[in-house]
């Protein structure tokens, strides 16, 4: 994959990661998550054969689909799609995402020393997703956004880890973990509407 294409992918990942943090609509957020997994798959495919790397895409899209279908079917989901719409808050989150972007970019050469087999773009994309996911986990208390934040963090980790190890079991377990997160998110969204068991 050419350097230019890789750079575009990293840009896409940053936009998706920041977008997930900022957008108020749950549906848009899930769309961005699905798009983010395309970038993750393509960056992982630099280190791994495409047929193994595609597992990341399939698992990611399944996770996004599970989350999307859950709040599509939640009672009142058509009216309550937007959460925490707040202009100063959104501005603050955008500014924080930008700061993460700049600081990770400036620390890129140092981070490269830790991941010797990785390209500059893989390191940048991975650490950006880790940073943006962590920012999401720090700033937000909504269970769905926390799950998506964790998925973002794990996506970043998967890009970096793919440059270090290519184990089938690890790939499978991480894919199951992604889908597990989506099911957990879906359960947490529905839990309060379910019948009490005791």
């Amino acid at each position: 994959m050419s350097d230019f294409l890789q750079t575009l992918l990293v840009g896409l990942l940053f936009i998706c990661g920041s977008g997930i943090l900022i957008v108020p609509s749950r549906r848009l957020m899930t769309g961005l998550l699905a798009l983010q997994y395309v970038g993750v798959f393509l960056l992982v495919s630099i280190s791994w054969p495409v047929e193994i790397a595609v597992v990341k895409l399939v698992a990611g899209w399944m996770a996004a689909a599970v989350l999307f279908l859950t709040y599509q079917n939640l009672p009142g989901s058509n009216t309550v799609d937007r959460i925490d719409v707040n202009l100063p808050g959104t501005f603050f989150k955008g500014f924080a995402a930008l700061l993460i972007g700049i600081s990770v970019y400036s620390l890129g050469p140092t981070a490269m020393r830790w991941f010797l087999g990785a390209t500059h773009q893989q390191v940048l994309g991975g650490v950006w997703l880790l940073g943006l996911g962590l920012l999401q986990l720090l700033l937000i208390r909504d269970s769905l956004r926390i799950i998506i934040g964790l998925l973002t963090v794990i996506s970043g980790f998967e890009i970096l880890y793919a440059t270090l190890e290519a184990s089938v079991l690890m790939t499978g377990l991480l894919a199951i973990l992604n889908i597990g997160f989506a099911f957990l998110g879906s359960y947490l969204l529905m839990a309060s509407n379910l019948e009490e068991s005791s």
Partner: protein
Amino acid sequence: MSTPIIWILLPFLAAGLSLFLLRYRDMLKWGGVSFSLVLVFSALILPVNETVKFLFWEVKLSEQLLIFGRRFILSGADRPIVILLFSLWLFWLLIMDPKLVPTQFIPLSLAGICLILTAYSVEPIFYGALFFAFLALIYVVLLSPPGKEPTPGVLRFLIFQILGMLFILFAAWLASWIDLNSGNQVMLARSLLILALGFSFLLSIFPFISWISMVSERNHPFLLGFIFNTYFLGVFLFGTRFILEGGWIGQDLNIQVALQIAGVIMLSFGGLMAIFSKHLGRLMGAVIIAEIGRSLLAISLFQAGFPIYFGMVILQSISLGLWSISLTLLKQGIHDLDFQSAVGAARLWPVITSGLLMGYFAMAGVPLLGGFPIYWALGSGLSFYPLWINSVFVLSTLGLVFGGLRLLAVLTKNAGEESILILGEPFYRYLILGLNVLLVLIGFLPQLIFSVTRTISDMLLGS
């Protein structure tokens, strides 16, 4: 046939199937009790790696299972761990009141035990971190029963466990790098730092401690008791194996000082929290934080500390079980778990509150109760180390006892109320009395516990 199939896959399958039977609470409970007995006895009697004649067939129970090139090993030397974990499950099932505890506790707790065993048995051991992530997912579901919103503490627990997993996986990769470049002190320091961070997340070592008090305040006390009991045991087992098998000890590293510093911080935090807590749930959190600290101190003694650590596990299980079932029953009679609401509870429900007090004081280390000889042994082991460790150990224990005395004062205060409300079924009140007696008996006959725990640690360290 292999041991991982019998002790991991089959129970996991049973846990999955029993999710379809959640309506039948009592059947599920007693079915679970029978199944756990079968598992414990199978771990006691089944010969591993030996050919035995079964009816017309010759059967050999292998100790390993190969999946995608990775091995899951439960050898004969790991029997004590299998027995311990399934016995814990049996104990928690026995003391569970199906009317007061969400029924999904039974399948999810079994799945949790299986995941702990998986994390313990996988080779290379760092894969175990991933199974702790799965365990965290299951415990989040367990702590968020249907009809309840997930609490912020539960979500924080999930975040910390996932971050811990990522750090451990990354540190394990860095460790493999050190093998190639032996003597690289910078890489060694980096990987150790990341590993320490990973285990700090998993063990909730300060400053990643906040979720314990958050969940203690808001979540179901019985579910929390089980989770605190098994989760930290699982992480300690995994961590010990990680350190022993990963060759971290052979790298001229002083892990002992790090363990002792972390232990002292946790113990002092627990002691302080017990002094200032005004909530029954938070008091449970305080004692758990102190227990993590004591466990770290016990493990820092290495060979001499393992029997003490396993003694603490047994005592913690009984005390925590007693505390949890008592608090679950008491919750039926008071508005919330604030001290204010519990004023005079001992005058209304003496048996139930006796369970609370005995469970708490045993874990605090009050003389004549089960915890005292175990913590005494820990203190004796620590007496060869610097004075500040011993001072914090004693002061924190006093803090815990002070917290208990405040609880005693609150529970026995005359609130001028008379109640005819009887809480819990007679079986559970007798159970509380029985467990109270057991804690006193352990206090008088600690050698029984120590002979068991010495056998466990000898088998494990000999493996």
